[in-house]
């Protein structure tokens, strides 16, 4: 994403990068909290549900943040690059997780930890962003 591009004085980019970084950190913290909480405390009822979905809160936040950045970014080229990178990341994540899911179902592959999907998506978006930028260079 934009944090791959070091030299920028665009305030929208800085806001987005800072907030996205914070949400990613929050995701890691909530992921640990959720996993440890469920394993150690063995909660019941609503608390189980709340702990289980805790890591999804920063993800929802990141989706909203991305939408907000799109409306704040005045540079249509940068917006177009990010949209293509996001599409690439979403597509790659969809393909990889679906393939893995079928392998789990029919080839007894090890279960893919759901917590890995967000980092996987970020890696794919990062790769796609680099490829899209290279195409326009």
């Amino acid at each position: 994403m934009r944090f791959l591009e070091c030299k920028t004085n665009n305030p929208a980019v800085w806001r987005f990068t800072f907030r996205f970084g914070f949400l990613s950190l929050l995701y890691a913290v909530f992921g640990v909290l959720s996993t440890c909480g469920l394993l150690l405390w063995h909660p019941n009822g609503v608390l189980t549900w709340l702990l289980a979905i805790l890591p999804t809160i920063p993800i929802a936040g990141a989706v909203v943040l991305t939408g907000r950045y799109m409306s704040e970014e005045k540079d249509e080229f940068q917006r177009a690059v990010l949209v293509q990178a996001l599409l690439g990341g979403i597509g790659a994540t969809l393909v990889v997780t679906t393939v893995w899911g079928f392998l789990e179902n029919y080839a007894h592959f090890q279960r893919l930890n759901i917590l890995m999907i967000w980092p996987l998506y970020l890696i794919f978006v990062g790769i796609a962003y680099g490829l899209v930028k290279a195409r326009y260079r």
Partner: protein
Amino acid sequence: MKNRLRVLRAEREWSQADLAERLEVSRQSVNAIETGKFDPSLPLAFKLARLFGATIEEIFTDESQG
């Protein structure tokens, strides 16, 4: 889409960064438009036209029109 941005910019001795600043976009945007890899939106094309005191047709060439 082909365009005369590089020529118009050179006539005024502007760098890509100078033009980017005037358009309030990134230098990469100017480079992508100039090399024909990215087609600007109508509002940005009008902004370019105003900046160079030309019409959109004088800057951009529609390649599909023989």
